[in-house]
Each structure stands twice: as C-alpha cells, then as structure tokens.
C-alpha cells in the first residue's frame, strides 16, 4: 500500500477483528489488501468487506461453541438501545396525530438508501461481487 492513508484505513479496520483472528490472518490480510489495491480494487470496498467480516467474526460463536463476552456485550447494548428506540418510534405517530400542524418537509425526507455496489465492472465478462456470504444459520 503506497498511500499511507489507505494503509492506515486498512490497518484500522483490521484492528476491529478479534485478537485471535488478527494473530492468525492479520499480516496476510494486510498484504492481501495491498495486492488488491494494486490491482485496482477501491480501498473503500476492501475496508468495507473487512469491516463486515469483523462484525461477523465477533457475532459468530467461537469454535468452542460459546458466544464471546464481547459479542454478548454487543447484543446487550443493542437490546438496551433498541428498546428505547422502539418506544420513541411507537410514540412519534401518536404525537404527530395530536398536532394538526405537522407538515412534511420535502427537504427533511431521507434520501433513498444508496445500495453498496454489488457489481464491480471489469472488461470482458460481467463480474459479480460477493461481499457477504450466508452462514447457513437461521437465527
């Protein structure tokens, strides 16, 4: 990775993985990112892929079959944040109905979600990208 910013981005994202993963794949993953960037793959796509991989790694049960303590903490935090958010979301329509002056503002509407590019165009045949693989588990 010639660009120091790119190198820092990849190193930062790789730090999101659990220590056991970094011990095993960390050096190779950094080298692989450098090779892919050299081949023309956008650094952002690589960072995103590693970020998604890190999230999956934390949330996947370890080989021993136990959820790690960090994954449990993340789940607990998600539950704690999710419940108040759900309460706010359910309260909002009731408040909106009670005031007749609520008007929608076009500039306040969220823009349509921009999907992450699923296809990387390359010369010749069409290319498809898989940035997320199913785990074959149903939650």
């Amino acid at each position, binding site marked *: 990775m010639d660009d120091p910013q790119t190198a820092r981005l990849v190193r930062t994202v790789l730090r999101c993985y659990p220590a056991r*993963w970094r011990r095993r*794949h960390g*050096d*190779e*993953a950094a*080298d*692989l*990112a450098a*090779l*892919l960037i050299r081949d023309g*793959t956008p650094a952002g*796509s*690589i960072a*995103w*892929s*590693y*970020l*998604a*991989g*890190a999230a*999956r*790694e934390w949330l996947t049960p370890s*080989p021993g079959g136990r959820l790690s303590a960090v994954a449990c903490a993340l789940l607990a935090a998600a539950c704690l944040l999710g419940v108040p958010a759900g309460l706010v979301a359910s309260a909002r329509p009731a408040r909106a109905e009670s005031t007749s002056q609520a008007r929608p503002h076009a500039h306040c509407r969220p823009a349509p979600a921009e999907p992450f590019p699923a296809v*990387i165009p*390359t010369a010749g*045949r*069409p*290319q*498809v*990208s*898989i*940035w*997320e*693989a*199913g*785990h*074959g*588990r149903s939650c």
Partner: protein
Amino acid sequence: MGRRHGRAGQDVLRRAGEASVLILISLAAGPKHGYALIQDVKELAGVELGPGTLYGALDRLERLGLIEPLPADDRRHPYRITAPGAEALRVHLDSMERVTAAGRRRLQLGGV
C-alpha cells in the same frame, strides 16, 4: 481436522454459501493462498470475492474439516481441500446438476 463431517451422501454445502462452494472448486485444482483464490474464482466464475468474505469462508470450511491450512509460505497461508471436502463438493455438484436438469426440463415443458 474439523469438528463436523456430513454423513455420506448428505449435502453439507447446501447452506454454506456461494463463496464457500467457489473456494472449494478453486482448491480442487490444487492448494492456493488468499490472493490466488480471489484471482482464480474471478477467472472461473466471474465472481469477485471480498477479502472479508474470503477469510470468513476459509475459517468456516476449515472448521467443517473441508479444507486444511498448509505451512505458511512467507506470510501467506496456503490451503488445500481435504478428502471430506472433495466428497462434499462432489455431492453438492451432483445435487446442483440434478436441480439444473430439472429446471431446464420445466422450462421446456412450460414453453417459457
């Protein structure tokens, strides 16, 4: 070696995801490390595996005992397909062939 091996004839790759199947197909031709796998899969299937997806699939396949790491070459770890991995791939490809044939027959019958 991994924890789980499918029973004979059982398609253990059915829910493993496309990336895992493509990696096994690539490794069926010989051991490869991560970068070589990405290049080979791109060439054989037109699919560009993200590096995060690649390592996730490699770890999963290793846990299943379908691939195994070879001694590191510099900083790179090559992987090779195991005998149960080759058998699992064979079973999965047979299953895919049956489904493909049935799909083609139905397209003909339906006149679509």
